[in-house]
């Protein structure tokens, strides 16, 4: 199980503005370990799914070109206080993480 996702969601009228931070190494497979001289294997998030009350509002597909500890921001309409926002990711090793917050 990966680290929990840090989610900041702010309601502006019926629009939810969401910022998410996902602690993850995001190894591209290109970096060489300074001690061993060996390339560090690829280890990166491939898919992020964002659900509003169980319904997918945004899916992000990522390659190795997204920075370490990825940050993403997005917004969606028809949101109100008390609604559930769930963000989950899955990486290339099959590891995953899911975090849910209430909008307020």
């Amino acid at each position, binding site marked *: 199980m990966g680290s929990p996702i840090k989610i900041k969601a702010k309601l502006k009228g019926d*629009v939810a503005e969401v910022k998410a931070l996902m602690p993850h190494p995001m190894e*591209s497979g*290109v*970096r*060489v370990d300074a001690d061993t001289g060996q390339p560090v294997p690829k280890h990166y998030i*491939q*898919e992020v799914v964002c659900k*509003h009350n169980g*319904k*997918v*509002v*945004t*899916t*992000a*597909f*990522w*390659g*190795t*070109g*997204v*920075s*370490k500890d*990825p*940050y*993403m*921001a*997005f*917004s*969606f*309409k*028809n949101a109100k206080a008390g609604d559930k926002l769930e963000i989950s990711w899955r990486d290339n090793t099959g590891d995953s993480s899911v975090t849910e917050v209430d909008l307020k």
Partner: protein
Amino acid sequence: MKLQRRALIRSLFTAAAVLAVPRWLFAARPDKAFDEKKADAVLSDLFDGPITESDQVTLKIPDIAENGAVVPVSVSTDLPDVESISVIVDNNPTPLAAMFELSPDSVADISVRIKMGESSVVRTVVKAGGKFYSASKEVKVTIGGCGG
């Protein structure tokens, strides 16, 4: 007989549900496009139509990135019916950095932080109403972000 009718009704409901699926059905990750080594190959894998430069697509990214490991990028557009937003870094080993699939509830405004190995053209392609629109910018990188 009664059971059969129930099964028939159930299958009709299933068919209706399948037909009712909107065109915003979320697709699978385009793995091939993410493995491509050339930006042109990414574009032809992902977009089956002409891509038009559009001033309705706003790409926000610094002119000079002091640290290529963390380059903030935002894409927004006023175009209606936005289905996806992709971010492509031409000179990265694998140019496709990210592709966001949006829903009808989405506001077409996303941000993400990307890595840049060297100075490069960064482009975004927005799919809206079945058509493709782009914006691009040349970004200078002082310290590359792929070697670590």
